[in-house]
């Protein structure tokens, strides 16, 4: 018998909705399969989600593990209030110590390291450039600090927008090229992962649009794209306070929707390459540029010092450049968190609720923060670094790439290097204590005395090749401490387009050198020596290494400066004299 029961459709709906476990009605296999796949994906990735608590017990947020040795990503605004050491809970129910490693205050990213295991479950990094509007995403973390057993909360949503630009809020925190989602992102979700349907990490949740409805999700949350973070990751692992970049030029969109250079600094690399006011930017970083926001989106994803392709149009003609990006902030603006006034944790309140929230009767009085004794050695304070300990480790690792040149260590006397340049002329470099010389062919003679005078671009147009060679000699024959300043910077593509290289920076006086080590193989592939601020460096690229009297030395290298090839040198003889004994008089 049929019964006309109005509630039947509702019951049916409930059955469809909560199909799992119900036997009253069969559900289509694809529905069950999709759900089972999602449940198992979430079980898998939940192991990598971190609940972060300040070691003082006051405040916290979320994070996500990205490597088995314990590196985890979070937001700068989570760790900045948490101290140098913090406590992290995983869904195995255990609490781990963690130490701050690197921070990106502009991009609101922090890298921490969980301690005590080398087999942490880590999330797989996805490709956020492939994220499409409408695809399913899952935010995980510790909203409202609900996860007292460290099991993360999962919220599902779709991607609402990609390549969103969020203006700096307050200080210099800026979200460029971020992912907008309607997955519920609430206070406490900060620093937690945004996963795609395959369980790949595509972003770090950090911001939401909040308005008059109190500090809870209202359908618009923002995640920092993982591809942006990948570019900064090595710098963060190096214990740095990494900085974002500027082109040294401002742009605006005109009425014809062209993005045009408004103003440009004459000191910028872009100016030296020929970019001028009024030029129309066509593409930047390989992306077509149709609005000032898109330009800012591209700029926001690169660390300072990177070389990025730029195409502009002037008078109907296209020009392709490689521009080096400049530091966005002065060093003094990038003070580490301990020198900044910490912001107190905020509590969510109802919009009309002016009274402070009731005190938690079970709250512990904040305990003074002490570094855990076992891990104390993993933190080293130094101005300009988040944790210098990790920079020191990275420096030592890179310097191992100089092992082939170890025989030169004691040979710090006069160097003579001879060979031929591309057109067949011969050359001889002489690097001595009194001065540096280069002779090319019959009449090309270049000399720079080492008498304390200003370094000069000699030979002219090389960017200072003689000084660069002397820097190389100093690196190979003297301790790194002989430079006045050494730091590990991170990684970047060689010359903007090549394989990834890791960068060690040294400084003597005003001369800066960036030593470039192949990221996979560790060998030195070249270096850029800059004689002063805002000039083109001498770019020395090692093409091959040979053996000269049992000593390894570059047998072929090319030199460029600006956008000009200077010369390629083929070495056929090299003489290295030992370091003279200290003069006793």
């Amino acid at each position, binding site marked *: 018998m*049929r019964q*006309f029961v109005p509630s*039947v*459709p509702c019951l*049916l*709906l409930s*059955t*469809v*909705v909560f*199909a*799992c476990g119900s036997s*009253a009605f*069969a*559900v*289509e296999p*694809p*529905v069950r399969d*999709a*759900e089972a796949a*999602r449940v198992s994906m979430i079980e898998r990735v939940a192991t990598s989600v971190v609940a972060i608590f300040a070691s003082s*017990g006051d*405040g916290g947020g979320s994070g996500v593990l990205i490597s088995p040795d314990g590196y985890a990503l979070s937001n700068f*605004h989570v760790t900045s209030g948490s101290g140098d050491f913090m406590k992290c809970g995983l869904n195995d129910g255990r609490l781990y110590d963690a130490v701050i490693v690197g921070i990106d205050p502009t991009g609101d990213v922090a890298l921490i390291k969980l301690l005590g295991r080398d087999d942490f479950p880590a999330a797989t990094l996805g490709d956020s450039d492939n994220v*499409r*509007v409408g*695809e399913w995403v899952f935010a995980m973390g510790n909203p*409202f*600090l*609900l996860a007292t057993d460290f099991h993360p909360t999962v*919220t*599902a949503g779709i991607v609402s*927008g990609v390549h*969103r*630009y*969020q203006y700096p*809020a307050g200080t210099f*925190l800026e979200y460029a090229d971020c992912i*907008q989602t309607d997955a519920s992102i609430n*206070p*406490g979700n*900060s620093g937690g992962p945004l996963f795609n*349907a395959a369980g790949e990490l595509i972003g770090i949740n*950090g*911001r939401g649009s*909040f*308005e*008059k*409805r109190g500090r*809870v*999700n209202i*359908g*618009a949350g923002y995640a920092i794209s993982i591809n942006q973070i990948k570019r900064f990751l090595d710098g963060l692992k190096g214990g740095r306070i990494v900085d974002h970049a500027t082109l040294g030029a401002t742009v605006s969109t005109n009425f014809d*929707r062209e993005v045009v250079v408004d103003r440009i600094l004459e000191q910028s690399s872009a100016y030296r390459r020929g970019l001028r006011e009024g030029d129309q930017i066509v593409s930047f970083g390989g992306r077509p540029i149709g*609005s000032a926001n898109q330009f800012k989106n591209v700029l926001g994803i690169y660390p300072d010092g990177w070389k990025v392709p730029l195409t502009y149009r002037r008078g109907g003609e296209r020009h392709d450049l490689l521009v080096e990006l400049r530091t966005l902030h002065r060093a003094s603006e990038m003070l580490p968190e301990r020198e900044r006034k910490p912001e107190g*944790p905020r*509590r*969510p309140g109802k*919009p*009309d609720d002016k009274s402070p929230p009731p005190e*938690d009767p079970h709250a512990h009085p904040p305990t003074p923060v002490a570094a855990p004794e076992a891990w104390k050695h993993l933190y080293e304070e130094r101005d300009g670094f988040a944790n210098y300990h990790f920079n020191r480790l990275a420096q030592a690792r890179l310097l191992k790439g100089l092992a082939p040149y170890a025989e030169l260590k004691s040979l710090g006397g006069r160097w003579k290097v001879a060979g031929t340049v591309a057109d067949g002329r011969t050359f001889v470099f002489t690097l001595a204590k009194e001065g540096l010389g280069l002779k090319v062919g019959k009449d090309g003679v270049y000399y720079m005395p080492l008498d304390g005078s200003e370094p000069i671009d000699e030979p002219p147009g090389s960017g200072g090749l003689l000084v660069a060679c002397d820097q190389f000699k100093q690196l190979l024959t003297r301790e790194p401490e002989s430079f006045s300043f050494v730091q590990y910077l991170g990684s970047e593509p060689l010359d903007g387009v090549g394989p990834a290289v890791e960068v060690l920076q040294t400084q003597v006086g005003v001369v800066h050198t960036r030593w470039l080590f192949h990221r996979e193989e560790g060998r030195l592939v070249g270096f850029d020596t800059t004689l002063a601020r805002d000039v083109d460096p001498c770019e020395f690229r090692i093409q091959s290494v040979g053996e000269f009297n049992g000593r390894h030395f570059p047998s072929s290298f090319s030199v460029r400066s600006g956008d000009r090839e200077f010369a390629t040198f083929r070495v056929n003889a090299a003489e290295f004299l030992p370091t003279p004994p200290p003069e006793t008089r």
Partner: protein
Amino acid sequence: MRQRLWTIAGEVCRVGSLGPWGLLSVLFIGSLGSGQLSAQSISETIEDVSPKVVKIFGAGGRKNLYDYGSGFLVSPQGHIVTVWSHILDGDAVTVVLHDGRRFTGQILGAEPPLDLAIVKIDGEDLPHFDLTRDVGEAGPGATVLAFSNVFKVATGDEPVSVIHGVVAARTKLSASRGVFEAPYSGPIYVVDSVTNNSGAAGGVLTTRDGRLLGMLGKELRNNVTHTWLNYVVPISELQTPIEEMITGKFKPRPSEDDEAKVTVRRFSPRDFGLVMVPDVVSRTPAYVDRVVPGSAAEAAGLKTDDLVVFVGERLVPSCRVLLEEFGRLEPGDPLTLVVRRGDRLESVQLTTPRNSPRNDVTTDSP
């Protein structure tokens, strides 16, 4: 306002019921491409719909009066439907399309009781909703997408934001008069996600395959509970005034009593060989009375006493809704029915005949 998410110690908020996981599963099927319930993925729907939604910038910008809003194109020449608001207080507004093209828009007409206005830009071949074709209806439980210029997040050539949700109810806003201060009173969809935010009003709600369901309403707060209502005005309420404003025949409507609408129905269950039970009460459950031998329905395996639960994505609570859904079919459309047979749910695939038997315009009243 954009704020950083700060974290809190101690305080625990109670969170309401969990999201509709089962429906998510239904959506996943679409996105996994099995094509059983829909051939189109959400991403494809969004690519199709986004260009029809525009960003509108006008008066305001002070205090809580934001100066941005949303609208949607309903003609290739640039007629834009939006919500009647202070943004339109100036002589003209700026309209930005999904591809960054900017236009100056003139206000063509408005119907404040419906919270409706029409803005005109000068364009050609613009992407738009064809109100005679690209519209739909949805019942509670239907998965929907909301497109809008919420919080002005999308600028320049960025497409508007899109969020997903589920129709929680179809009801009348007037039922809550005195609680909600809104000029509009009439049928609405209530959505379970936060569709109505700053700048969202004038955006669209669509089915997951991109048919226009209605226009997102303003932010509306319950004066008693202080909760916010996410409501959407069904396109069927707006269709006639929109057409009249565009053709210049619009006169402010004298009464709200336009219930006796006559609709054209292209198909009926009989076209597939289905005979439903007599529609005797207002919510007669949609049971199959008889399957015509040799018909498409029989070939598809439908049986007497099957209860039709879904037509496509729409939950079917009554014969009347079933007739509406069949009436909306286009020749050649795939048709998926979910029926309850005994204690099982069965999914049945049919194809709408190429030739509509009712091209000669038969009309019937619901």
